[in-house]
């Protein structure tokens, strides 16, 4: 293995490297899905894996998501560690019965005798101009299913570290990859052993004193941009990147909100029944006496995902975030 110095890499490259390293370290890791072999995946995340490890380790499956995940269950039952690719968020729905009725509960229903170490990679979210069925934020469905971990990276380093941790986990992990961050670049050293991140720990991406933006995945860079813009308004915003929706890191989130006294949850997923409602409730239950204002949500509208030429109106942007921050009852302070 050659040593790679810190240099710019994309999130997609970091994901590829994570898959490659996991496959090299553990012969039981198998990658499978639609177009993941010869083509290297429609986003090229599995590029080169079939060539390096053979088609038995990186397999082009028939085009059938329930079959892909269902056979992965059987492979995991026999001791393999499948990494399944769902080609797009909305293409994962046919696999939901396998996911909910088997993947999520096999450990529990067998009293731990049959854990299923399956990683399900799902490119998710909008902002890439995708036509219908290519831009859904489906995380609330996964969060509502006990037995699954739900992980989503926002940085290049996390993409590597969290995917390695997900594949190493003995529990099933839904690994949500923010499509519009696939080509985001960052300086990153894949040889740093500390880059394998534990699942379930949020991280403060930007420290601030005025209010906390609680977010994850594709909305993290948007929140960081909003935090910069907020300085003009005199607000010093903290940005918490959840990284893992399940398990949820109450500790890091609440510590931040207790410091700032105000919070806005930001995500692309619809607000009604979305992750933000759960997060706002958790924060309110735990930090009520520290709060100067109700916890607000900035989310996608409660509509079917819009056509690409209209999606910018749907996605939470800097202005909508700043507008919400402006409604955090600052009057009481002056």
């Amino acid at each position, binding site marked *: 293995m050659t040593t790679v110095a810190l240099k710019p890499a994309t999130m997609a490259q970091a994901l590829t490297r994570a898959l490659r390293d996991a496959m090299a370290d553990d012969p039981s890791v198998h990658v499978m899905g639609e177009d993941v072999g010869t083509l290297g995946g429609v986003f090229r995340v599995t590029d080169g894996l079939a060539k390096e490890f053979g088609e038995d380790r990186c397999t082009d499956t028939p085009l059938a998501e329930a079959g892909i995940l*269902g*056979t992965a269950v059987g*492979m995991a*039952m026999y001791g393999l560690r499948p990494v399944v690719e769902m080609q797009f968020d909305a293409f994962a729905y046919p696999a939901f019965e396998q996911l909910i009725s*088997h993947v999520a509960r096999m450990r529990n*229903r067998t009293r731990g*005798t049959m854990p299923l170490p399956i990683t399900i990679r799902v490119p998710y979210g909008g902002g890439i101009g995708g036509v219908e069925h290519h831009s859904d934020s489906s995380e609330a469905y996964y969060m509502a299913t006990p037995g699954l971990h739900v992980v989503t990276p926002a940085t290049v380093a996390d993409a590597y570290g969290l995917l390695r941790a997900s594949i190493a986990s003995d529990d099933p992990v839904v690994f949500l990859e923010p499509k519009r961050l696939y080509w985001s670049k960052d300086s990153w050293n894949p040889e740093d052993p500390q880059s394998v991140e534990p699942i379930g720990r949020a991280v403060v991406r930007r420290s601030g004193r005025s209010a906390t933006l609680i977010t994850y995945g594709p909305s993290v860079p948007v929140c960081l941009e909003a935090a910069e813009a907020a300085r003009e308004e005199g607000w010093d915003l903290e940005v918490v990147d959840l990284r893992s929706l*399940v398990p949820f890191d109450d500790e890091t989130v609440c510590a931040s909100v207790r410091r700032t006294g105000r919070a806005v949850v930001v995500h692309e997923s619809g607000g009604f029944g979305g992750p933000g409602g759960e997060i706002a409730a958790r924060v309110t239950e735990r930090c009520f006496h520290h709060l100067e204002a109700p916890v607000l949500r900035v989310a996608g509208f409660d509509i079917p995902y819009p056509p690409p030429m209209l999606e910018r109106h749907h996605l939470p942007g800097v202005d909508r975030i700043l507008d919400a921050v402006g409604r955090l009852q600052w009057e009481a302070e002056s």
Partner: protein
Amino acid sequence: MTVMEQRGAYRPSPPPAWQPRTDPAPLLPDAEPYRVLGTEAAAKADPGLLRRLYAELVRGRRYNTQATALTKQGRLAVYPSSTGQEACEVAAALALEERDWLFPSYRDTLAAVARGVDPVQALTLLRGDWHTGYDPREHRVAPLCTPLATQLPHAVGLAHAARLKGDDVVALALVGDGGTSEGDFHEALNFAAVWQAPVVFLVQNNGFAISVPLAKQTAAPSLAHKAVGYGMPGRLVDGNDAAAVHEVLTDAVRHARAGGGPTLIEAITYRIDAHTNADDATRYRGDSEVETWRGHDPIALLEHELTERGLLDEAGKQAAMDAAEAMAADLRERMNQDPRLDPRDLFAQVYAEPTQQLREQQAQLQAELDAESEGSHR
């Protein structure tokens, strides 16, 4: 050259040669379900195997009647009986080697028991004190599967994984006629054929999906014919002829083990009892149909064959019945003991390590339990 000039130069030519990717003829099932008992093939059957099948059938029937009785006594929440289908259940278990895997549906507790799963542990799901009552790895029996046909892709994946690891393990998946309408049936068979996975699919066509007859389920010539569309052989067998089911299954398992790929087998049988004890079969079928099938009973068929050939006498029958009664008595006695319930188990094994949220909820439950026991001691 302009587009119009290109068009002018266009010379029609035939498309690349086409031919079917597989010859469909060898994949087609026979015109009639395969039978052994009462035919010339019976003479070739191994007497020891026939006697073993008989003992297992008698035991299996008794297991069904005992489990049904336990529902009436409130000891089982529900029991989907396989009475009338014992030949399929027993042959499925006996056709496999130790190292092979069985993937049962919820109606296949008997197959699990015939493979060696403890009868009480096999009934845990239906008693309701836990979901899967046995360690699937102990006898290589996957959990009894309730969502229809969803266990079939598991069987394919396991068989595929075994082959990748170089193990000559075969998976046998059980499904009913209703299950063949599910998408997972289609996807499993397709994956199995594409991967040439060492897996065998046994469809027990017992005539009904709860109340819906096969005619409303499919327009296929037979369920076995569906195999051809996937590029695997389809076999039709008399599902009440234990010797025939065993032979067809054994052939398919051997074929799969040798690298020949999957087989779809349709066993024609009949569900003598209602769907479960909670069902009323008189709403959708007549007694005469049931009576007709009682005349083609799997135990009676085999008993007749064995008696005709002098392989079974009254003492032999009595011995089989005594063994079945002993099993039933043991099952009754153990099922009449209250199961051990610990509410704290609810939080065990949701994840490898409980999340902080689950730890908090577990503490809440513990406080409720403590308050309950304090109240009961007052």
